């Protein structure tokens, strides 16, 4: 059985003025106008083409196949997956192109707004189980490509169950306050970095949203960005699981792993001690129609380089 049916298409070339400096994601600046022009020209040329859908599928895989929107072994992107939190219970949306229960009637703009700004077409806020403040760090073209891919999968007529919020005044008062104070915030680059640590940073922080599981959370589910990727104890991670510390700390993190071992792990789940990943991590490596396992070796190496470059944080996960 072929492991990959589609080869990822190389990223758009990054003009010199837009190339990120110092490996950090840059804010939009004076070069934004030029960037918009370049992107408009390119996206008009590539709208809904097989190449764009293939690029979109690749980014979709790099985002773990949007696995939160698929119940394991059920229809792709049909939603319905349950998430319990201190606010109550929500169910992942149906993001298939179904016109009544999915996003079939939404415009590209509306899909992108929901993904990165957390607003539905009717103005309602998404609960940030869907980490829109993190996806805000994705480049516009990547988001457009993902939309093209989302529109290309089979529509499934299946309404997600309605959310059950148990905290009074949650959506009107607590949620905006939480978002302003506690949500991790990523800002988009004009164009996605194409190689090196900058690419690894982009894929880890924004697209792969590793911090959503791997960065420690407090009692209010706030993310402790000062300990980025330092893990979560049992009960604090997704679905109550413990999540490993993947900073380069030698005692409590993965400082003893080589770049090659990290690169291999993201494709196979094989760890240096012969153990094999399971649980939610293996789910995201496998992905849905695509997953981390479908990243190119160059992209996995970039992620490995980035993970070796972030501050080591001592945090023993039991």
């Amino acid at each position, binding site marked *: 059985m072929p492991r990959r049916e589609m080869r990822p298409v190389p990223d758009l070339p990054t003009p010199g003025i837009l190339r990120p400096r110092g490996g950090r994601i840059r804010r939009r600046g004076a070069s934004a106008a030029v960037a918009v022009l370049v992107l408009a020209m390119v996206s008009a040329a590539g709208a809904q083409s097989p190449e764009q859908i293939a690029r979109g599928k690749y980014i979709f895989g790099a985002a773990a196949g949007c696995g939160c929107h698929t119940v394991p072994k059920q229809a792709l992107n049909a939603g319905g997956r349950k998430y319990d939190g201190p606010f109550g219970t929500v169910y992942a949306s149906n993001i298939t192109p179904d016109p009544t229960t999915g996003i079939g009637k939404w415009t590209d703009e509306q899909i992108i707004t929901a993904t990165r700004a957390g607003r539905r077409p009717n103005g309602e806020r998404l609960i940030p189980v869907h980490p829109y403040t993190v996806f805000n760090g994705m480049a516009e073209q990547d988001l457009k490509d993902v939309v093209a891919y989302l529109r290309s999968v089979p529509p499934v007529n299946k309404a997600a169950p309605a959310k059950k919020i148990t905290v009074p005044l949650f959506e009107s008062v607590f949620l905006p306050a939480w978002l302003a104070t506690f949500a991790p915030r990523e800002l988009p680059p004009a164009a996605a970095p194409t190689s090196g640590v900058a690419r690894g940073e982009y894929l880890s922080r924004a697209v792969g949203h590793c911090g959503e599981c791997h960065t420690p959370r407090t009692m209010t589910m706030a993310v402790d960005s000062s300990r980025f990727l330092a893990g979560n104890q049992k009960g604090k991670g997704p679905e109550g699981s413990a999540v490993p510390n993947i900073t380069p700390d030698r005692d409590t993190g993965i400082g003893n792993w080589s770049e090659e071992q990290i690169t291999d792990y993201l494709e196979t789940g094989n760890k240096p001690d*012969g153990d094999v990943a399971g649980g939610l991590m293996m789910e995201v490596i496998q992905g849905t129609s695509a997953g981390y396992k479908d990243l190119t070796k160059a992209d996995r190496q970039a992620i490995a380089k980035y993970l070796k470059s972030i501050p080591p944080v001592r945090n023993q996960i039991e």
Partner: protein
Amino acid sequence: MNGRLSLTASVIVTASLVVGIGAGCAGKSMSKTGSGDVVADRQRVMKLQGASWGDIQAKAKAGNIEAIAVNAETLALTAQQIPALFPEGSLTDKSKAKPEVWQKWSEFEAAAKNLQTQAEKLRDAARAKNEQATQDIVKDFGRTACGACHTPFRQPPPRS
């Protein structure tokens, strides 16, 4: 008591003792060859499986094909032991098993059987010195033979 009654009584008493001791022994039969701590026993088996898989990867990388057979055989044999190492009621604090093991027992058994079958395939390919077949199996073995069980049935293990 007269002779016949005491004979019947002693038969009944002896029979009860035999049944009682037998029932007590049945509980221990699962860990006859182990330490008596089934969670520790199975973690030991899993560590051995991890070491065997690590060896297989190293040998495959070095092109040392025939030598993979012994590790694959270890995996096949220890896979057969897995179901018996997860008796009802063995979900302790030290265990990384999820309740799903017992809620979906037939799936769990099937996953162990899958490991055994794939390991035997790998052993046979290695014994036949078939480099291509061996490397093809090794490529996906971690995910499909080990990960396939760890995904639904194991909580994240302690840091390695």
